[in-house]
Each structure stands twice: as structure tokens, then as C-alpha cells.
């Protein structure tokens, strides 16, 4: 029987760089900016941090490899630092580990940072790292999700008309939200027509169905719940945590229906149980979910229990996940518009939910936000991390 750390850990400071083509910032520059922003937000001296977790997915040119990447950036030496890598769930899993360490009583105050510098690379777009050198030759990140999307559309696409049009609505919504976010990579609206007519990246995904390749870093300072008020009144509590891992080679599983992600279903069940959530769509006020591709967000609605399998296209079509809907999803603009520096994304989602729960989200503020959900989905939908955050 899994235990619970509900209401034992508080987020007292968050920081985030502008996401985008940060050509003039190094990996360390971004970590410094996000880290010290989080320290300032928590009104804490860096020396008070007792332990840190760094989430980075893909080290390059000496950056992001092991704990030293954070130690050297912040000049934080002699303390326990752990680097976490868990595909695109890297940032949330780093947070999850830090939260459990604080809840255990081992540390009073900890730092979680996520960073990724993708724009220094010679590659175009997100390749497929870590796969077998020729068994998996030909796979790309969009291709991996496109194979699932095509199966999904084959099975459910006809139910609500054109499947690609439903996918496009996710892009339109997230760009709309991102246009109101000064830290987002792309602060611009797109039309459904633009999305549908964009060049194809991996069928059925066009350019505007795919999140961009982005630089960025985000950080959070967490502490024991009973210390939180010493830092600030509007702290945010960890209500639920879940992490679930399924096969990293879903294409070989003949039992896989290939229309969604069991990892998200299992991780959200864990998090909902800890948080005491029985009816997610009614209880959760906003969700930052992993929209690496438009269809992924549609599957997320279903896998997170916002609606039934096959009805996600309806959920977007009816505007239920819009800012004005009954469960706004990705008010930040999501990966689609905010960008997706992989290790940073999960921590950036936490940054957005904390900002929303504090009521500081400006034009994209979700009204009366009390309970927010964060969801990362990594690999070919194999690693899911769900975090529920709430006001005290």
C-alpha cells in the first residue's frame, strides 16, 4: 500500500526564464536566472538550500550531465545534488524525488531545477535519442506519437468528423493562451486553417501540431509544510504525486491498442488517490498537461479521466479545456506555445500552476483556482508523472 505525503511539502518560490531561442544564454546562464529567481521569490538565501535535484534530459557539450551541472551553475558545492533523467517526465520526476526527500524529514529546504539547451545542437527538431541504433532507425519524437495518433484516428476519427480538425483546435487554444504569456516561446495566435495547412512533419501532425524545440530553465524552492509560512503566505502544497512507467518499446506489445497511454492512467490514479480526488473534471480547476503534439493533449484528457477514451476530440471541440471552459488545460500555452526544453518543462508547469494558484497569471488567469494538475509524459508515452498542487 503506497503511502501519502499529502500536505507535507510546500512550494515557496518559483522561477522561470523566458522560453525560446535563447541564443545568448548558456545552459548555466539559464539555470542561474531560474534558480536565483526562485530564491528571490522565496526570499531565501541560497545557502539555506540543503539539497537539490536537477532535471535534464539530454546532456550536450558538457552541460546537463550529472549533478555538477547544477553545482557549477549556482556555485552550490558540498551539498547533495541528484540529476534526474526520465524522458520528458524528467522535470516532474525531479520535483517528485525532492518532495519525497523533504517529506521524509531528511531536508527542510530543497531546490528543484530543470533545464535544457536544445538550440545549440546540430540536429533539426527532436530526434529519437537512446533507441536501438538500427532497430529504431527512422523514429523521431513526432513520428512516435504520430503512430499512436493514426491508430487513434483510425479507431475514433470518424466519430466526430475530421480528426485532424480536432487536433488543430488544441493548437489554436494553446497558441491563444500562450499569446498572453510573456515568457512563452511563441506569443501569437494561430487559426485552425493555418494549423491544417501547415507542412506535414509526421502524418497526421503538421508543423503547428508539434511543440517547438526550445531553450529554457525553471526552478522551485520547496520546504516542509510547517515552515512554509515563514517564507510567504501564499505558498502552494503538494496534494498528490504519481509516477508510472510502461514499456519504452510500445510498438512491440501486441496487446497495446495504441490509442492512449496506460502510464498516464496509472500515474493519475496514484496522484488522485493521494489527493483524495474522485471526480477530476469537477474538482481540478486547471491542468498543465503534456501537449508535445496536439493529439497527445486529446489522449491526455482521456487518460487523466477528464472524459472517456475516444471522447477527447469532443472535449476540445466543446471548448471544455479552453480558458473559459470548465477545466482549462494549458492556460500557460502548453508545450505547444510555451515551448518544450525537455528537462525544464515539468518544473515550468509547476511554475505556471503555482502562479495560477497565487492569482498572478494576468490575462490568462483561471478564476478561483484552488487545485491544479501537472502532467508530464515521457518517451513513447512510457513514463508519466502527475502532480496535484493546491492552496493550503
Amino acid at each position, binding site marked *: 500500500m503506497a503511502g501519502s505525503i499529502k500536505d507535507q511539502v510546500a512550494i515557496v518560490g518559483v522561477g522561470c526564464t523566458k522560453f525560446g531561442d535563447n541564443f545568448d544564454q548558456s545552459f548555466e546562464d539559464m539555470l542561474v536566472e531560474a534558480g536565483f529567481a526562485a530564491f528571490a521569490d522565496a526570499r531565501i538565501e541560497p545557502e539555506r538550500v540543503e539539497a537539490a535535484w536537477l532535471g535534464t534530459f539530454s546532456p550536450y557539450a558538457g552541460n546537463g550531465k550529472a549533478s555538477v551541472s547544477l553545482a557549477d551553475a549556482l556555485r552550490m558545492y558540498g551539498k547533495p545534488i541528484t540529476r534526474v533523467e526520465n524522458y520528458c517526465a524528467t522535470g516532474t520526476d525531479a520535483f517528485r524525488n525532492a518532495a519525497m526527500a523533504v517529506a521524509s524529514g531528511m531536508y527542510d529546504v530543497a531546490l528543484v531545477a530543470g533545464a535544457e539547451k536544445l538550440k545549440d545542437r546540430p540536429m533539426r527538431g527532436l530526434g529519437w535519442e537512446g533507441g536501438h541504433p538500427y532497430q529504431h532507425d*527512422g523514429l523521431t519524437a513526432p513520428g512516435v506519437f504520430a503512430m499512436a495518433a493514426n491508430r487513434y484516428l483510425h479507431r475514433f476519427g470518424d466519430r466526430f468528423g475530421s480528426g485532424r480538425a480536432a487536433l488543430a483546435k488544441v493548437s489554436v487554444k494553446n497558441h491563444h493562451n500562450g499569446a498572453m504569456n510573456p515568457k512563452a516561446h511563441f506569443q501569437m495566435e494561430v487559426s485552425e486553417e493555418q494549423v491544417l495547412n501547415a507542412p506535414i512533419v509526421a502524418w497526421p501532425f503538421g508543423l503547428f501540431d508539434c511543440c517547438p524545440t526550445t531553450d529554457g530553465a525553471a526552478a522551485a524552492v520547496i520546504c516542509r509544510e510547517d515552515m512554509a509560512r515563514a517564507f510567504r503566505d501564499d505558498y502552494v502544497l503538494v496534494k498528490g504525486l504519481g509516477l508510472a512507467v510502461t514499456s519504452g518499446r510500445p510498438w512491440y506489445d501486441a496487446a497495446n491498442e495504441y490509442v492512449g497511454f496506460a502510464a498516464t492512467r496509472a500515474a493519475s490514479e496514484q496522484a488522485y488517490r493521494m489527493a483524495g480526488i474522485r471526480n477530476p473534471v469537477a474538482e481540478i480547476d486547471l491542468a498543465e498537461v503534456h501537449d508535445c503534439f496536439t493529439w497527445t493533449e486529446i489522449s491526455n484528457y482521456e487518460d487523466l479521466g477528464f472524459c472517456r477514451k475516444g471522447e477527447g476530440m469532443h472535449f476540445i471541440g466543446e471548448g471544455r479545456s479552453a480558458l473559459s471552459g470548465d477545466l482549462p488545460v494549458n492556460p500557460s500555452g502548453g508545450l505547444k506555445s510555451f515551448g518544450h526544453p525537455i528537462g525544464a518543462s515539468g518544473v515550468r508547469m509547476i511554475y505556471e500552476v503555482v502562479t495560477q494558484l497565487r492569482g498572478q497569471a494576468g490575462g490568462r488567469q483561471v478564476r478561483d483556482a484552488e487545485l491544479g494538475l501537472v502532467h508530464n509524459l515521457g518517451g513513447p508515452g512510457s513514463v508519466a508523472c502527475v502532480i496535484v498542487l493546491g492552496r493550503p
Partner: protein
Amino acid sequence: MIGITGYSIYVPRRRMRRELIAAAWGAPAMPGCKAVVNFDEDSLTMAQSAAWPLAQSGGVEALAFASTTAPYWQRSAASLIAAACDLPAQTATADFGGSLRSGTTALRAALDAVAAGSVRTALVTAADCRDGAPESAEEALFGDAAAAVSVGSEGLIAELVAAASRSDDFPDEWRRDTDAHVRSFASKYSLTRGYTENVVAVGRGLFEKAGVQPEQIARVALASSDGRAHLAAAKALGIPAARVEDVRAGDIGIAGAGMPLFLLAQALDRAKTGDLILALAYGDGADGFLFRSMGDGARLQADSATIEYPTYQIYRKLREYWRTSGGGAEISNVLLRREETQNVRLHGSLCPQCGLLQFPIAKVCGACHRHGGLIGKALARRGRLFTFTKDFLYNAPVEPTVMAVVDLDGGGRFLCQMTDVDPAAVEIGTEVELVLRRMREGPGDHYYYWKCRPAPAGTGS
């Protein structure tokens, strides 16, 4: 009695119309089209595809590969083909090359090995993909193809009546170790003194050896160097053109070392019981055989699917690409060796508890989680498309790259690239076959793995 126990051909699906080549150079066009390898094919992969149907009949104890365009100077293509055909490690493998008659030289060696009692069944597979220099006559003339023949002493399709050879170091066509393209003294002298003199001498020698008259020959499989010379040679041997196999210059092209066995297979397929077949191949001398058909042919499975290159530029790009591209990872021989059973022989694991056939090879069952005792089992090389994508992001010589998830006949789900397909025709449920192809080139090596392609029409699993 020894002879032929099976035959098979492989023609790449890509076609290049000669008028497009001619137009690129402002030259008069040769008629027809030629068959050409896709960017992921070479002589090894074509020869493996030709050998596979014959290897499946079992009992193959030796495998020979013949080509003038083997992908390696040092590394046995025959051994890789044997593994990809899932033949046992004790298979005697041999590589033949150096001459356009290397296929028939290998065939003679295989027949001799069977006659000597050294092996019971031997498989000979030959292929060529010779690249003519841009703007040369060879560029339009040469085509790519493969054929395989199995020989033995039981279950004969055709009995060997006689074999003969002739050695003649006559310099009419050659390629040095440093040359990318064939060089030649193309002239009437070369044709008469080289080609005609050698094949006629061997043909007449066979008539004498077997005590047969030219009019007894029902079919002649006479490989041609230019699409015409074989007719003159047949005439000199006293055989009318009607009995000479079409060398397929008009729809395949002059297929190098693959051609003699290809024409032999074609002749055997058209033969009736009792027909005498004369097979002749030229190259630095000549090889010849007389076979007597022991059945009526019509055993070849037709693969009518073709894809035309729309322009000369695309053809040229892909023709260069498969020889010169890079970008793949360097892979250790430790990994390659450890995964040979899985990745080359294409074995998965069968769970004795729940019956799940799974790929890759597993120690713990993916369904019932039984630990240990899973049984190695070859996967079927046929299946249906479960899902796919058409990926324009992946850096490939032709876009999009089609990635396919395939449910294999008899169990196992597989991920691979799809090749030889018009992307517009890809849909869930498409019947596919797995074919060995060259993957992204490593910094210092070729890597071979499986792709899928639409199954030939009318050969349902």
C-alpha cells in the same frame, strides 16, 4: 542424378525510364526502362531476397553468393545472407566475384560439391547492381536484379546433363579495384572475339559432350552483354531466336552477374517436362550447362509492383546516396554479434506458459511475466500494418520515411521502416512482407536490418 531443386528471382521495384536518362543528357533514348535498386538495396540484399524462398524449403548445407558489386571487399556477404536466411552455423558459405560469370561459376562449384557428396543441397544466389558512369551507354543499359538456384540430388526440377567452362583473359570489360564504374573496349571486335567466340565454343563443347544436336535444345538462357549479341551467338550455335530467352534488356536491363541465373530461372519456369535447356554465361571466358527439365515450370511468384522514378535527378541522387551517405551510429561488434539471432535471423521468444510470441527476444514474458524458459522462435516475415506514420522530420534521401508497426502472421508485433511504397498508398491493414535492407550508413560500415514493404499481389500468406 544431380540437378536443380528450386529457383527464384528478385527484381527491385524501382524503375527508371531510359528516355528520362537520355533527356538529361540530350541524347537519343534507348527503348524501355530498367530495374534499379532502391536507396536501401544492394547486391547483398537483392541476393538475400532471391535466396529466401529457397532457403525456407530446408536442408541447405551450402550457400554461395556471386556478384561483381558485393558491398564488401572483405566480409562474406554469403555468411550474412545465410544468417538472414536463418541457415545453421555449419552452412558452408562462399563468395564468388570478379566476373560476370561468377554466378554460373558458383553454380558449377555447387553442382560439383553435390556430385562429390560434400553437401546434399546447395543454394547459389547472384545479384548485381552496376552503376554506369553518368552519360555513358552503360548508365542506361545496366539494370539491377538477382536470382537464386538450389541444387541437390533429390526432388529435382531439372537434371544436369553436362557442364563446361572456358577461361579467356580477354580485356573487353573490366573494373579496377579503384574504379566506381565499368570500363570497356566496346567494339565489334570485342563482341566477336570476346563474347561470341567464348559462348559458342562452350556451347559447341556441351553439344559434343552430351551428344545432342542444336535442334534438340528447347530453350537457351544466354546472358547478353548488350541486349543483342546473344541472338547472334545463338544463331552461330544453330538455335533460332524463338528459342532464346528474352534477356529482359527492355524492362530490367543488363543485370551483370545476376543475369545468367535469372535467365536460367526464366527458362526453367517456361520449360515443359523433358525440355533441354542450354544455359550460357560470358565473362573472361564462359560457363555453360545443359539441363533437362523434369517438370512443367510456372513456379515463379510474380511481383508486378513497380515504382517509377519521376525524374533523372531523383534517380541519380538515390543511386549515389546508397553508396556515399553516412550519419548512422557506429555500432560495436559486441552488440551486433549478441543480437544476430534477433536482428538478422529475426527470432523472437515464445512463452511456454501463455503462448505469446514476442519481439525482441525476452527473458521475462511480456504478457504473463513468466521468468525463464522462453523458447527462441523464428518470426514470420509476413504481416499486416497495425499503424504507421509518414515522417518528414527524419533525415532520409526520400521523404517521407514511413514507419510501420506490423502485426506478423503467427504472432509478434514489429517496428520497422516501410520501403518500396508510394506513401499515398499506405494504410492500416496493408499486407506486408519483411525484406532485408541497408540501414543508415555508419561511419565505417554498412548495417543491415529489416524493413517492410507491400506484399506482392496474389501471394497472400
